[in-house]
């Protein structure tokens, strides 16, 4: 009979190895990020707040990260398995019972969820959109717990995870088009923001293609990839996408090392290496620092989507000193207003461990204010003068914290990658997207 602390998960210690000093730093930062999810979770329904700011609603994507992090906490010994299972069940039961209808006050529709929900009731807030990508990140977490809790008495978790995944009507979200829409609003219908080029939607298509009930047609993925552009940019061959998070989110769950779709076969690369190169590209850009942003350098980078200053900047003789507030920033095409995402370098740990650690250490040494309670804030702009030594985002964002926990874990143990490599839905989705080779063989 197995010990209660043992596991059947056979994740690989295949990733980077770290020395004791690095291990200590990573453990501290991972634990602190994890504590956000604990502290800002509603224990009654399992919803987790989008940010630490008072009155913040739940972000449905953060729930997906949190579910995955309960697994990590369990393996790290921070959370007893029974308690992890219990709080997972609370989330899944609440989600299953939450109202799915076209009523603007519901929690979701057609299996998808609204981007932001009331922390208590789970009802839609802020007239937000029914979000495909945020629902996908939730479902990635749902599938993770569905794979992890594999003991007989944990069957309800597995059943609930299956039910939540299988009820999502991916085909409806195509809105009669070859590719997916970006969302839906009961007041206005489908949203078409024009997803042109590569971005984090990779995981959206994989889960949509893997559905046993409402699977997307295979040509939906190929139609989307028609907008890809393979570029030689700043000395790197990349499938470009500006904000760093787009290169990280799909990889928080999917092990894309060594497996290739048709596009990557043509380019003799894979999405994992593409993220590696995109990170190298960011470092190169920040070293060149064409906009002469304060702080940027080879070991200080991390430009992504996140909070930023909204102060008015004057345009003077061809230079642009505007700031953009909350914005998906990207380089080299912009926008770049000098705002860094302090969590971003650490979140690249599974791809560029040396760069991630060097950057994180320099950031902590030069600007320790970006990491209150050992937890990185969403945005930091050292070029905007404040009493705090640069503009700092208030509080913390759940997405950042969840990603940090998962990235560190994948780099150290490959736990989440290992779990979803065994998911039949993920395998089916990847294969239907045309992925072959590597562990899919």
């Amino acid at each position: 009979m197995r010990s209660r602390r043992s596991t059947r998960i056979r994740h690989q210690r295949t990733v980077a190895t770290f020395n004791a000093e690095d291990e200590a730093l990573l453990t501290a930062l991972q634990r602190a990020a994890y504590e956000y999810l604990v502290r800002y979770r509603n224990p009654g329904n399992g919803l987790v707040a989008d940010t630490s700011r008072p009155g913040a609603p739940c972000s449905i994507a953060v729930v997906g990260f949190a579910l995955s992090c309960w697994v990590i906490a369990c393996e790290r010994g921070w959370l007893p398995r029974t308690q992890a299972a219990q709080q997972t069940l609370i989330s899944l039961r609440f989600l299953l019972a939450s109202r799915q209808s076209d009523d603007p006050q519901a929690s979701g529709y057609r299996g998808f969820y609204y981007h932001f929900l009331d922390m208590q009731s789970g009802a839609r807030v802020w007239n937000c959109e029914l979000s495909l990508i945020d629902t996908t990140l939730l479902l990635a977490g749902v599938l993770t717990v569905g794979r992890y809790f594999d003991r007989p008495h944990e069957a309800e978790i597995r059943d609930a995870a299956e039910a939540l995944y299988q009820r999502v009507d991916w085909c409806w979200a195509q809105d009669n088009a070859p590719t997916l829409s970006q969302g839906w609003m009961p007041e206005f219908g489908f949203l078409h923001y024009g997803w042109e080029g590569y971005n984090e939607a990779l995981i959206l298509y994989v889960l949509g293609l893997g559905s046993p009930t409402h699977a997307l047609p295979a040509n939906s993925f190929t139609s989307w990839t028609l907008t890809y552009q393979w570029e030689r940019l700043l000395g790197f061959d990349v499938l470009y996408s500006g904000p760093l998070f787009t290169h990280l989110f799909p990889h928080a769950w999917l092990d894309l090392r060594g497996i290739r779709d048709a596009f990557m076969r043509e380019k003799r690369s894979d999405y994992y290496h593409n993220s590696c190169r995109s990170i190298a590209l960011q470092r190169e850009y920040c070293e060149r620092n064409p906009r002469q942003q304060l702080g940027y350098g080879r070991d200080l980078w991390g430009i992504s989507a996140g909070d930023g200053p909204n102060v008015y900047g004057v345009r003077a003789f061809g230079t642009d000193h505007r700031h953009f507030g909350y914005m998906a920033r990207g380089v080299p095409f912009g926008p770049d207003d000098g705002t860094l995402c302090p969590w971003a370098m650490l979140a690249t740990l599974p791809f560029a461990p040396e760069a991630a650690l060097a950057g994180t250490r320099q950031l902590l040494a030069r600007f320790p204010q970006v990491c209150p309670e050992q937890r990185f804030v969403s945005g930091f702009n050292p070029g905007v003068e404040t009493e705090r030594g640069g503009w700092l985002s208030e509080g913390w964002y759940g997405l950042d914290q969840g990603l940090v926990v998962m990235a560190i874990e994948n780099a150290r143990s490959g736990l989440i990658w290992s779990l979803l490599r065994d998911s039949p839905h993920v395998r089916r989705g990847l294969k239907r997207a045309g992925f072959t080779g590597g562990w899919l063989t």
Partner: protein
Amino acid sequence: MTRRPGSPALRRRLAPAARTRIHDLLVIGAGPAGLRAAELAARLGASVALFEPRRLGGTSLNTGSVPSKALIRSATLFAALREVTRLQHPDGRDVPPADLQRIASRLRQIEARLLGYHSLERLQRLGIDVYPEAARFVDARTVAAGSARFQFRKAVVATGARPTLPGIPGLAEGAYVTSESIFALEQLPARLAVVGGGPLGCELAQAFCRLGSEVTIIQDEAKFLPREERDAAQILAQSMARDGVTIFLNTRVTGARVEGPLTTLETENYRTRRPVAAERVLVSVGREANTHGLDLAAAGIACAADGAIVVDAYLRTSNPRVYAAGDVCMPHMYTHVAQNTGQIAALNALQNARQRHTDLTIPWCTFCVPEVAHVGLQVWEARELSIPIKTYTIMMQDVDRAITDRQENGFVKLHVAEGKDRILGATIVASRASEMINEICVAMHTGIGLRALARVVHTYPSQSAAIRLAALSFQELPDATPAPLAVPPASRRRGSRRTRKRP
């Protein structure tokens, strides 16, 4: 074909004998396509009649490329003046809005000067019979103009296109202008709402903003310039926002109401409904072919659903005697396309030259700041055709001349067949992209690849050096691939080790 001595057009028009002659070539429309066709035909010795009820020069000269570029030039100077003033007076002194009357006067002078190259007198000296009347087809080889009829051996229809008016309820009563009427404004509107984010809408929105108007641009798609790639459209949007243009993307105009001097547009996007009030509304949502009143059916000339005349690769319509050229038949409604298709139509009609308009390498440019120019295939077009393609990109912020001139917004992208050095297309976003793209056109037209382009010495410092840098990057070694993390092979997927527990 015999060349006739020239004679004054008025006298010719009054001579009954002239009305019954069979012309070698009738040209309907005296815009860039019609003028090019008529002038070339006359130089080739053909008898030519040209029909144009409005001013010679067509849209390009009177309401299109020429006045808009002249206006943009004035706007660029105003923007520079504003920057200099801010530098010299940090207390916030600003430049007053432009005097549009003086600018309009300058536009008229420029138009008159350019029209001089195609004046009535010069056309007549070439032997062209110019009729200031609208023509319509009577049958497959006859047109009527006024009360007269004209037979032709061949004809070219080059009647151009006009702005499309969207069916916005209430807009007809409002103070709206189109690209045809905006250059007649004599007073700068304090507020200008621009409906449509295509090339013309973007150019004029930015120009009027720089002249001092408060401009809001409303685009119903996710990006400006839908025919351009994402990165180009985003840089343009950033540039327009930096200039102070208020941008509504993904936004439809659902109605308009007039209240005194103001027209208020009702707009709706996915999240909000917002009114936009302005003294003037510029409608720029596309153009449609001018075929109304031509009675094309009488000559057996077929039109597409959008009203454009259907032509084959040789610009021949469904009536083998009749050709078409320019905006009336081409999807690319640009002056240079009109001129070149006018030439091809005349040569094919008169000399059976068998030239194909599909063989043209057609560049185009949106003259914003920065300019956005393109030629050849877009990447998505290549991918739809299953052509493996790779893009070599140089950011203008890495080009010395762009840095010295503080014109660093933009890039050069050369799209090349994967594994080869043949250029399939290019997009340039730069302050002088309209000039730089022509280097690529020469390379594409003559088959010069990146290897050869990399050997071409460019002046230093120059913005076009970015093109050479892109060509040089073709010869770089592949980047050092980051060392991959170990990937578990399929057979070892189910390992036995697990994470050590941490206290």
